[in-house]
């Protein structure tokens, strides 16, 4: 039985170390349970429920899919159909968003407006286009008002669309490791705090493990696929005596790999990096201390894992490597630098200290209001302005974008991404193509620091067929749906109201 020896709420008062030492790295890094598609289809049932879960030496009250805190991995191929049955055993509404996918936001698709009431179930039927970008995606709860805490409790997992390594054949023989990076803040009973603050200990995990051991051979190169599935935390990862070669961001290969001493990525962002074994020995993977600005948060340093470099044991095959001199040039997709823009928009992130609310264009999220209506076929330039004294991270569903400039400094084309961090009092200009007919419908854009999203920093966009026009105000996708599944779940506001009657406390 796990102990419940979590530290008290003030143990980081003076920034005391919460890391485990290298000697604690005994257990090898495990991949979470995987579900793979077969014959063009993946049918999987995910049960969202509260479970007492052992995380390292701690036991916490987590909310997980199928009891797996690290999150089950879903593996599909372009052209497959992903069918997820979500059963909500929680006492709150929940749902699933398939982060980064360019698929339909309607009905039983990637419909994050849909909330599944307690005791209800919902079928997501996601047709992955045959030409969809391969890469590392993820799925997670998107229940507005609950997302921060539900995600911290564990309701997320990785979604791999296979083929990333095929697009860059030199990567194909390399060992792939998945890193679902999560965090939690729990009290001495293992219950998550209601208020998530720096004076609680923030514990970060990899695939639900604390300080795992990562084995690698001296001449080996591994592909580490890092997915930040925390609610609010930024990572600044360093690996003692090693560098990282970044080969992918947010599922897209980068045109020219970049070698760095540390990788930085925020909530919801993903990175594909190459790590070379090098000289035998043990090296700590460290999440360095990060701050998000004068009004933001601080995340103390923590040892995340120990990489152990050792020659192959007798009888063990020699693992593949990739010389640092390798010149990979990946196809990163279409460069929109020279595209003709059909519109410009300004999105302002701001907050109000008096109420604690967070705004987009000085308005909090309203599920009945569509902030932006865009005709299909548009290619727009958006300016994201951060008017706050802390970082914000912009994310839009369904439509990846190209970052054109940051604070007026032009950015080279580095592939399409689905998230970007906006500097304090800064601006990011980006271009978004709303040209894919599959994304017609209503979806969201928001700050992916989920504390901010839960407190209002989210808005709706509707991409509409210009021949048909936008949906009437207040109408949900469900009203356009026929078939037997219509009405199996309810719009967010109704489901939330239903949740109130089911609390029983």
């Amino acid at each position, binding site marked *: 039985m796990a102990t419940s020896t979590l530290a008290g*709420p*003030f143990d980081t*008062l*003076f*920034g005391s170390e919460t890391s485990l030492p290298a000697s604690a790295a005994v257990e090898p890094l495990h991949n979470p349970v995987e579900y793979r598609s077969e014959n063009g289809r993946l049918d999987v049932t995910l049960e969202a429920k*509260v479970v007492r879960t052992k995380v390292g030496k701690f036991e916490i009250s987590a*909310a997980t899919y199928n009891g797996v805190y690290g999150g089950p991995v879903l593996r599909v191929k372009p052209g497959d159909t992903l069918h997820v049955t979500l059963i909500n055993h*929680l006492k*709150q*509404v929940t749902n699933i968003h398939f982060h980064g996918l360019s698929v339909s936001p309607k009905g039983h698709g990637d419909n994050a407006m849909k909330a599944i009431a307690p005791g209800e179930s919902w079928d997501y039927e996601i047709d992955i286009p045959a030409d969809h970008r391969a890469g590392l995606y993820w799925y997670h709860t998107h229940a*507005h*008002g609950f997302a921060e*805490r539900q995600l911290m*409790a564990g*309701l997320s997992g990785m979604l791999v669309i296979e083929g990333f390594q095929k697009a860059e054949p030199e990567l194909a023989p390399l060992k792939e490791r998945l890193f679902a990076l999560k965090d939690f803040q729990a009290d001495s009973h293992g*219950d998550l705090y*209601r*208020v998530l*603050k720096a*004076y609680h200990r923030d514990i970060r995990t990899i695939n639900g493990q604390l300080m795992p051991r990562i084995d690698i051979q001296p001449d080996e190169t591994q592909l580490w696929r890092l997915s930040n599935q925390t609610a609010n935390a930024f990572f*600044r990862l360093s690996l003692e005596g090693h560098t990282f070669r970044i080969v992918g961001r947010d599922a897209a290969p980068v045109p020219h790999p970049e070698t760095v001493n540390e990788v*930085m990525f925020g909530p919801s962002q993903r990175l594909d990096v190459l790590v070379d074994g090098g000289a035998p020995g043990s090296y700590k993977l460290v999440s360095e*201390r*990060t*701050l*998000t*600005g*004068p009004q933001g948060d*601080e995340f103390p340093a923590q040892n995340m894992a120990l990489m152990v470099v050792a020659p192959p044991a007798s009888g063990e095959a020699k693992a593949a490597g990739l010389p640092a001199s390798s010149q990979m040039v990946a196809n990163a997709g279409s460069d929109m630098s020279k595209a003709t823009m059909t519109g410009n928009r*300004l999105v*302002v992130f*701001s907050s109000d200290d008096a*109420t*604690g609310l967070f*705004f987009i*264009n*000085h*308005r*909090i999220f*309203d599920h009945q209001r569509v902030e932006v209506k865009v005709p299909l076929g548009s290619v727009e330039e958006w300016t994201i*302005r951060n*008017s706050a004294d802390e*970082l914000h991270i912009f994310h839009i569903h369904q439509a990846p974008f190209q970052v054109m400039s*940051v*604070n007026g400094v032009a950015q080279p084309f580095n592939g399409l991404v689905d998230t970007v*961090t906006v*500097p*304090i*009092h*800064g601006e990011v200009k980006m271009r978004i193509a709303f040209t894919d007919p599959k994304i017609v419908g209503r979806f969201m854009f928001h700050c992916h620091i989920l504390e901010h999203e*839960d*407190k209002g920093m989210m808005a709706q966009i509707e991409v509409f067929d210009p021949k048909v026009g936008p949906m009437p105000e207040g109408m949900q996708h469900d009203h356009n749906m026929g078939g037997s599944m219509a009405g199996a779940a309810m719009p*967010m*506001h109704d489901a*939330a*109201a239903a*949740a*109130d009657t089911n*609390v029983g*406390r």
Partner: protein
Amino acid sequence: MRNSIRMAAQACAAVSSLSMILALATPAAAQSAVGDSAWPKVGTETQVDFEYDHLSPKHDRDGGALNIQAGQQTLIELDNRWSVSNLLTLQPMQSLQPGDHRVLADHGLFAEELFARWNNQRVNIKVGKFAQNFARAWYLTPGLYGQDIVGDYALGETLGAEAQVMLGDETFGLHQVSASAFMADRTILSESLFYNRGRLTRDAGGSANTSGLKSFVVSYDATNVPVGHAALDYQISLASLGHGVDGDKDERRGSAGFNFNIPLNGSVEETLRGRFSELRLLAEAVRIDSADGISGQRRDYLIGAVEYQRGQWVFDLTASDRRSMDPFAPAVHDKLQSVAIGYSLPSDMVVAVGLAHEVIGGQDGILVGLQVSQTLTTCDRCLIRGRHY
């Protein structure tokens, strides 16, 4: 400019007792329901400052005081339009005088704010007890002593109604116009617990101490106006305060001020490494004619402040100036210069030291102080954060 040193919180020694207070302050009802449409939602936040100040006048006896200043703010959101806000403040009710040696003396607890609010994000209406939106340096000036002179012109402890309207969109920043009508608070809310400062009466006189809402403020506020990649805020305010029983003329006020936040090292990467740095400038001028409702009596204020933040460190310099003209007395020129250094610990605790030189009523003095402060959020829209997921 944020008052990053003042806006801080508390020492470890008081943590356990404070936690008990906070537990009591968190409404039990706040834990009884979940749901995005579950109203009301409750937020509570506590800020506690421990401060020791030492005053050394050149021609009088030294004085020193150890004080607590605490604020407990509660926000109850009744639905997505209506809310009720309350700010309870515990603070010493007497200012430090030469020769004083006080330890936690004269502390009173009172309701500094209690108002209902309606807003739809473009229009914001407040009714109740709140500080008027006249000038801003009285709460924005940084440092332990930066607000000591300009605190004079804060229009707090007033009852009234205020409407604020957002103009246009945010392309060139957030622009708002506000107007309010108010009077001095003479209700039970003007009293205090523990050390009772007593209820304000009409006979006590003073500006805005009128029989009805005979005082008015009109303000124009611009916030986050982009200037390059810096943010400019400015405000212009006009006020008329009805005279009390001891006055003969309504007080007239005008103010103009700005604060300018200029990130110096503000890339995402440098921010995450803890090397974010920013220069903040603040200036404000205020004129008060017929001060205290006395015709011919005038006060002019001028304040400037520079704050530099780098990572966890904050350095502040302030200079403030007050000139008082009275038709029947010699003019008085008061001034104060201060410096302060603060450091934020990972827990959001801020430790700051400050030094000020003041000339008040012709008397020189040196103030030295140490402040430890902590803000604790005990309930953060907690109705939607139930025990179960």
